[in-house]
């Protein structure tokens, strides 16, 4: 049996994901625009007072990022599941954790990274004081990969269900709570002139932990969904 080396398979998968993303490049903009639209709803919903907006800015931006991520999670494994690709991948004998990791990396690159890139604009809109800006970006850089990694577990668990969308959000939002708290408190602290490295450090520790554990949980969930 000519089992392909893990590296080549991983590369092939990543390549395919980029090709797919490129084919549907119009869709790449969707998480961004979603983020913009949701963030716009807040000034409309709570009123335009700059002081109030500045107060809630870190929370709103992070919550919008959570929502955008969760919305894109549902399709993380779904299309591969529905057309039988996942089945074939599992049967190919390649490590499922590696497949999960590769999909997660691709997901972060097309759904997480854009959020990071867009955040300065959102911060500007929401009147976030300038001292908070760089911490906001840092928190997103560390935090969005964790969102993808943890979210992938939920995506894998619900992939065999017809309407996984809302269930998925129910599963992953509670798991996102610590991240949301740490990130927003880091930003608020920096705005208030308080130390914030503690929070960022914890988030980083979370990233390392998620990176080592989440792919295996995702793999287990995928295996389960296929049976």
């Amino acid at each position, binding site marked *: *049996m*000519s*089992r*392909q080396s893990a590296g*080549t*398979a991983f*590369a*092939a*998968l990543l*390549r*395919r994901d980029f*090709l*797919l993303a490129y*084919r*549907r490049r119009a869709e790449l903009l969707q998480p961004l625009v979603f983020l913009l639209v949701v963030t716009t709803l807040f000034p409309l919903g709570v009123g335009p007072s700059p002081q109030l907006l500045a107060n809630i800015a870190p929370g709103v931006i992070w919550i919008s990022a959570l929502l955008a991520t969760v919305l894109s999670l549902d399709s993380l494994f779904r*299309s591969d599941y*529905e*057309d*039988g*690709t996942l*089945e*074939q*991948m*599992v*049967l*190919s*004998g*390649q490590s499922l954790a590696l497949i999960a990791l590769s999909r997660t990396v691709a997901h972060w690159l097309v759904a997480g990274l854009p959020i990071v890139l867009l955040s300065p604009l959102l911060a500007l809109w929401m009147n976030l004081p300038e001292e908070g800006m760089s911490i906001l970006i840092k928190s997103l850089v560390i935090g969005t990969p964790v969102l993808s990694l943890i979210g992938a577990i939920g995506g894998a668990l619900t992939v065999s269900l017809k309407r996984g969308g809302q269930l998925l959000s129910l599963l992953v939002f509670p798991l996102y709570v610590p991240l949301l708290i740490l990130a927003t408190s880091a930003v608020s602290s920096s705005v208030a002139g308080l130390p914030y490295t503690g929070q960022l450090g914890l988030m980083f520790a979370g990233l390392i932990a998620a990176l080592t554990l989440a792919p295996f949980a995702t793999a287990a969930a995928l295996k389960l969904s*296929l*049976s």
Partner: protein
Amino acid sequence: MLSISDLCFERYFERVFEPVSFDLSAGSLLLVTGSNGCGKTTLLRLLAGLLEASEGEIHSREHPLYAGHNPAIKDDLSVEENIRFWMKFMGTRETNTGTELCQQVIEEIGLTPVALQEGRTLSAGQRKRCSLARLLFCDEALWLLDEPYSNLDREGIVMLDRILKTHLDAGGACIMTTHGSLRPEGFELQECHLISGREKYSGTAA
């Protein structure tokens, strides 16, 4: 190559089919027959390792190639890109995974006219052919084919029989399901007739 004994599978704590046993040696073709819903697909998925047997055992040293109803074709990629991806991901018989091999496979499976068309636009038969393309480059000795003839035109059936012949002659083995109206021609074959668990009790065909 593969031997199973008293294999059966439960769903909702009830047997899907009555226990089956058989031995498959290199170079032989096993046809799993039975009426609609008797559990042929279930058996194949068991053998592939996608489901877990509730009783009985599977002895096999082979990593099988499974081609089921679900074609594993990405809607947004062209036929060529699809095949190329699977060649890279699964590895090929030849060491060369390049363009020529891919072209050759597409030619052989009869998809040249639609090689650049996106997966979503394929007709039912083209889709089936694309999913069977794997048979041409994979190295696995044991094939599990779930109704490979469905949706194929006459020409396609002849083509599949030819591919199968080559495989068996080279010492491979194949297990194939069919409900009996379409069967491989010109082969020596073992047959395994599945009996659905329900049928046994009720005496009616499912």
